[in-house]
């Protein structure tokens, strides 16, 4: 009898097919991830002239990315960990990182879908158009922003073992980010608070998204925001991976 180690490509494709199918069957969650940003985009139509199209789109995208990283990724990982799905997969001759990379690939596709939907809705309803370079760069900054929120989701699911606690924690954080997005940068609060929001994970992602949409306006502060965003992503991912346990019992 031959010991047949499956080809990495076959194993990975099988995992990805299953993860994409799972995502497709969770269409309601997918719709919600896209719906909230597009509703904000449509409801802020009157503010486009005042705040600028890229600003409004960046707020919508940031909220959408938060939703994907926290509500989509973290909750599904916590649920599957709780159900022993990861343990079952880990008992197969598949490297552990394949399991997570497959999950992250699905989320990456979600980010691309979100950015595309926001661009389409922004154009159709708010008549917001960007240069070709702006569209391309926004996909890149969207992925960087998405990595930050996926990292944040990973650190929550790493730190909190119980699936229900993960769910409630991510919802709280999501609502906090939603509030920051809606009101945080309207300069209605003390300067210290405004600065905190500005350099928070929400603010830096919004800045790089805005900068990406209009490359002519990309300045020194945007570059710093890019580095800070990458820094946040690295720290969150490091902590999330360090704390993460494959089963909820913590073994």
């Amino acid at each position, binding site marked *: 009898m*031959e010991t047949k180690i499956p080809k990495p490509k076959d194993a990975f494709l099988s995992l990805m097919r299953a993860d994409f199918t799972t995502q497709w069957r969770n269409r309601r969650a997918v719709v919600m991830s896209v719906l909230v940003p597009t509703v904000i985009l449509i409801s802020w139509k009157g503010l486009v002239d005042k705040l600028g199209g890229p600003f409004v789109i960046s707020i919508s995208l940031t909220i959408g990315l938060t939703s994907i990283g926290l509500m989509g990724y973290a909750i599904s990982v916590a649920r599957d960990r709780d159900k022993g799905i990861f343990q*079952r997969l880990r*008992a197969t001759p598949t490297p552990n990182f394949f399991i997570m990379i497959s999950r992250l690939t699905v989320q990456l596709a979600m980010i691309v879908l979100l950015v595309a939907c926001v661009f389409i809705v922004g154009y159709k309803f708010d008549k917001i158009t960007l240069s070709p370079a702006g569209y391309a760069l926004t996909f890149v900054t969207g992925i960087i922003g998405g990595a930050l929120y996926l990292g944040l989701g990973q650190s929550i699911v790493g730190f909190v073992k119980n699936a229900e606690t993960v769910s409630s924690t991510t919802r709280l954080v999501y609502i906090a980010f939603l509030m920051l997005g809606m009101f945080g940068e309207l300069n209605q609060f003390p300067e210290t608070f405004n600065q905190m929001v500005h350099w928070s994970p929400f603010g830096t992602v919004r800045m790089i998204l805005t900068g990406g949409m209009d490359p002519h306006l990309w300045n020194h502060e945007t570059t710093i925001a890019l580095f800070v965003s990458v820094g946040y992503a690295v720290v969150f991912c490091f902590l999330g991976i360090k704390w993460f346990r494959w089963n909820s019992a913590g073994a």
Partner: protein
Amino acid sequence: MIDKRTAYTFVKLKPSFWKMIDYTGSSILTVDRLNVFYGSFQAVKDVSFEVRPGEIFGLLGPNGAGKTSTLSAVEGLLKPHSGDIHVAGFNVSKQPLHAKANMGIQLQATSFQPELTITEIIRLFAGIYGVPLTSQRLNAILQDIKLEDAASKRFGQLSGGQQQRVSLVIATIHDPILVMLDEPTTGLDPQSRRQLWGRMEAIREKGHAVLLTTHSMEEAEAVCDRIAIIDHGRVIATNTPEALIELHRNDPNVIAASRKGKITLEDVFIGLTGKTVRA
């Protein structure tokens, strides 16, 4: 049927180099002085046993005795503090993918993605194990486990017995030399349990091995060729069920545990592990 005395495995190390392991007289699974800790708590203490080709080996013990921890270490799901585990000649720590490729596993609380159908779950694991799966082969598998009408059902929609059949099919989809079943008959009706026993015996007939944990002494007596009783993390007895009964027949604790005069494996088990209910 493969004669277990001449059961061989050809182990592909590199495309150009084939190693042949002769299982004649050797073990499919060797656990040597295994120690597992959870923090400062030692769940498994110097556990050693082996599982031979063509054998159903039972690991028995009260709740929290260390059975699942031992199995988890063999499955590579937790890192032991010390000890060696070899599956089909491969060290689980040093060659985990080769070792896992030779194992089929049914976890105690096996769960699959609830959004996937039975067909999709079987396809997923066939892909992971690199098993080509045509539609005809898939249909044959579903017919074999009498679930051809439930192909598009999701795992959570199946009964306990049906779930166990799917889990076992997935555990054996790559025809592994070692199948590990963690309390597979818990909650099953007698018909489903008998059917599962038949499937275990079929694996044995092929010269492969089954490592089974169970709380059912009836099951252990019915299907296991040898058993190890584990308590407080230690193996306290290893032998055939018949030999264990014979060896401990006159033990006062065993006699005290006997309910109907005739000494059973359950009496031996309670005699050796005590009457105290474990958490």
